[in-house]
């Protein structure tokens, strides 16, 4: 019997085939049945073409053994070696030495499995190690892990199970028990060989799920969650047969839950972060705030990942989250905001709307930092426009947010635009009004020359000031910038032209007309083009020589 045992050991260890394990990982595409997303927060997932035949030729003959289509078992030993092993195992088991046989099997296969996983790139990282690493480094490891895990589960573990089956099926390897125990099935040697490696493999995913929840992690963790979800049916299939193996499946399922929790937690954390973002100093020129870009890009990505997120996000932003906002001195009125809640709105959609609402509110706080009210309105214009634009650019995002809320946002934009125009231009345009210029009776034609001169002077000063200041303001969106200039021109130039037309002769008949009539209408038109460039203008307003 001892000789048989040694023979068994010998055949098992020396006849093992030299496998291109790494090839299993490289052809991960053929082992992945879910489609990778086209966008991801960091570099894109590798897209690999399915190369069925070359997998087989590189890695070993493939045979399907009552398994899911995604699984690819490979031969770990040549057929004749397997038959020999089967013969030995049968004899040992028949003689009551099944347990020894099973033990030898596990003791030889275990290091082989460990080595395979090593070659696939699975590392022995402790939770402490994972905590210490920078997120960028972890992202790379997650990507590698996903590839490795697919190969490990669908290739390595599946093949091990098949080998164990071929050798031990229907053999009584553990029926002699001294104490009452559940009868071990023929899977036990396989489970023993693979257990450590499997737990270590999933342990990495678990370590990731335990980490601190910061918003940057969301999308990679969703990737990890999805990859694990994808693998669970295979894990269940491979590890279902014995109690030992079952615990592996249970653990993998637990880890998937943890990852789902992490996703939910990170989304909350993101929402909190937007709420908490402090006003700090005002962004110069009233341009689009980095926070706006960040939040809208993030929201866009959320909509890319909406398939998984819709499954995972099952509750709306809680009343307590909104109440929490109430306690925040930056957002006292957030809790009272009337959020659109159409009947068929998914929780995910509610969250995105909430995020944008919080963003808007935060932006209003930032807008109040500007001393110039016109600038704070411009700031809001820029930022809300950016939000609206981002939504329109992404059909998924638009879908989630819904037309109603988009209308609301657009309305906010319009209001900001109107406010800007009023606060920036009302005073200037008022210089060009009729009222207050006419005096009744007397010898003059009814116009107070002094008042008129005063008007021209104030207009010039105010316009020059506006020109000086607002050229340094910024409207980053080209189209919006043009439209704004046009809108200003449309109000300003005709009014000026008409004012000039009606009253210039009064000034030209007096002394130093050039002090008062400094600009032609065309000059103004040209000057408006300087506005919102974000650069300080040339010191003088260019003008054509006036006639």
């Amino acid at each position, binding site marked *: 019997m001892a*000789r048989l045992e040694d023979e068994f050991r010998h055949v098992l260890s020396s006849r093992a085939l030299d496998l291109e394990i790494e090839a299993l990982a490289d052809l991960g595409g053929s082992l992945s049945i879910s489609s990778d997303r086209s966008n991801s927060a960091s570099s894109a997932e590798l897209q690999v073409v399915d190369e069925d035949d070359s997998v087989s030729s590189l890695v070993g003959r493939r045979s399907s053994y009552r398994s899911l289509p995604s699984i690819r078992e490979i031969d770990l030993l040549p057929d004749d070696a397997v038959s020999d092993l089967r013969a030995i195992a049968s004899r040992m088991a028949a003689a009551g030495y099944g347990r020894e046989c099973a*033990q030898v099997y596990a003791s030889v296969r*275990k290091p082989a499995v460990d080595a395979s996983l090593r070659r696939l790139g699975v590392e022995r990282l402790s939770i402490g190690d994972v905590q210490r690493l920078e997120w960028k480094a972890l992202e790379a490891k997650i990507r590698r892990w996903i590839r490795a895990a697919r190969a490990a589960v669908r290739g390595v573990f599946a093949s091990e199970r098949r080998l164990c089956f071929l050798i031990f099926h229907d053999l009584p390897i553990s029926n002699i028990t001294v104490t009452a125990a559940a009868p071990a099935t023929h899977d036990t040697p396989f489970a023993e060989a693979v257990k450590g490696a499997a737990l270590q493999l999933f342990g990495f995913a678990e370590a990731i799920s335990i980490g601190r929840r910061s918003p940057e992690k969301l999308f990679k963790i969703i990737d990890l969650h999805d990859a694990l979800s994808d693998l669970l049916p295979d894990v269940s299939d491979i590890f279902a047969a014995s109690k030992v193996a079952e615990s592996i499946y249970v653990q993998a399922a637990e880890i998937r839950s943890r990852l789902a929790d992490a996703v939910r937690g990170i989304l909350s954390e993101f929402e909190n972060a937007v709420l908490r973002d402090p006003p700090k100093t005002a962004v110069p020129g009233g341009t689009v705030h980095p926070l706006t870009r960040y939040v809208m890009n993030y929201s866009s990505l959320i909509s890319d990942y909406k398939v998984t997120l819709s499954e995972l996000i099952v509750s709306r932003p809680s009343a307590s989250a909104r109440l929490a906002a109430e306690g925040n001195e930056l957002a006292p009125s957030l809790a009272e905001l009337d959020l659109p809640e159409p009947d068929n709105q998914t929780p995910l959609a509610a969250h995105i709307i909430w995020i944008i609402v919080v963003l808007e509110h935060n932006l209003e706080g930032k807008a109040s930092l500007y001393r110039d009210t016109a600038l704070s309105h411009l700031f809001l214009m820029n930022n809300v426009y950016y939000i609206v634009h981002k939504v329109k650019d992404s059909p998924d995002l638009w879908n989630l947010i819904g037309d109603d809320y988009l209308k609301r946002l657009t309305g906010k934009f319009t209001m900001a635009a109107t406010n800007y125009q009023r606060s920036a231009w009302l005073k200037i345009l008022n210089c060009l009004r009729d009222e207050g210029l006419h005096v009744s009776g007397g010898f003059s034609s009814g116009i107070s020359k002094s008042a008129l001169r005063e008007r021209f002077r104030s207009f010039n000063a105010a316009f020059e000031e506006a020109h000086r200041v607002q050229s340094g303001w910024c409207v980053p969106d080209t189209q919006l910038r043009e439209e704004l200039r046009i809108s200003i021109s449309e109000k300003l130039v005709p009014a000026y032209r008409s004012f000039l037309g009606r009253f210039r002769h009064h000034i030209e008949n007096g002394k130093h007309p050039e002090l008062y009539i400094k600009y032609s209408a065309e000059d103004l038109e040209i000057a408006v083009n300087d506005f919102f460039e974000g650069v300080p203008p040339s010191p003088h307003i260019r003008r054509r020589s006036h006639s």
Partner: protein
Amino acid sequence: MPATDSSSAAAPLTSFGRSFLSHRRDQIPPPPPDHHSHSHTQHPSSSDLEIDAFHRHAADLLHDLLSDSNSDPSAPDLLSLAWTRRLLDSFLICLEEFRAILFALADSQPLSRPPLDRLLLDFLDRAVKALDLCNALRDGLDLIRQWRKHLAIAAAALAPAPAAQRGEAQIRRARKALTDLTILMLDDKDAGGVVGQRNRSFGRAGTTRDSLPHGHGHHRRSSSGGSSGSGSGSHLRSLSWSVSRTWSAARQLQAIGGGLTVPRANDIAATGGLASAVYAMGAVLFVVTWALVAAIPCQDRGLQAHLTAVPRTFPWAGPLITLFDRILDESKKKDRKHSCGLLKEIHQIERCSRQLMEVTDAAEFPLADDKDSEVQEATQELVQVCGSLKDGLDPLERQVREMFHRVVRTRTEILDYLSRPHNAG
């Protein structure tokens, strides 16, 4: 005190659990009316009372762990599997109460207000170190399971069902199994000796493609064992540590207990007493993980870590220090000093297998009657050890996993709480 139902604790707690909340309800009288308000120490606030109760309950739990079979016949022996399960139960109860207190008092003592936030984050850092230990301990328990399998083979050979004559083949088979076991345990002791010995390789006799690139546990040895007869074969060790070569249980323990400083009086006052609760929980975390490492095999099982200067004013300090000392004493005993784990059942494994080997040494067949009955006796003990291992290992492993879960959950809850906007700053 009667054991009541655990109302707040989660499912796997045994009947040993006592609920802090129901305990307290019976005990604390309503505060007397305050006629003379001149003294600030006269009437402890209700939060003080709750925190005091927490300290006292921790003391009770630790005290119970120290009870021996003289005073309480149902008390399991120190460091047995059953005792270790009790240890974990106690930890889980303590953790749950700690969590309950934190959130119960969070309104009056915002967790994010310094210095409490800093103390909590420090505690959570230590708790994370315990997670790696939980995983390593699970591996250690699996190792013991592997040992048990060898015992089971020997037991099956010597006490088969139906009963058969113990002949040469059976004896040989049992001896081989036990020899393999001894080698296995020696090997792992190498990795996990109490004093942290340097790892001795048994000699790497060449490598194959499939051999492992690193890990001191992987090495080839020539086959041994008196009765195998093959001599020239070599086989790899059946288990490897699944942690990296540099991972060390001793270091984890050091990180958990090292630098755990007694809270200052003004910190305690500033946090309404919660600072002392955090300290207590940290101390309990340390002593529990330390005891687990002492009991169960794992990589680099150094027990040098200890807590510095625990103030005796805390009711749990006495029992905690006593527990620590008792286990330390056990680790220094002559026959346990080089063991790979202080778990009582490991000692039993060592003893039983040694005894059986002695009894069957140079046996002549057919066995004389007195010899046979010696063998039978030794076998019975072996069967018993097998049985207690079989019954005890799985539940303990589940509990270790539960400890993992609860620590993660508590940590997540506290971190989430700290990061919510109305709590920040």
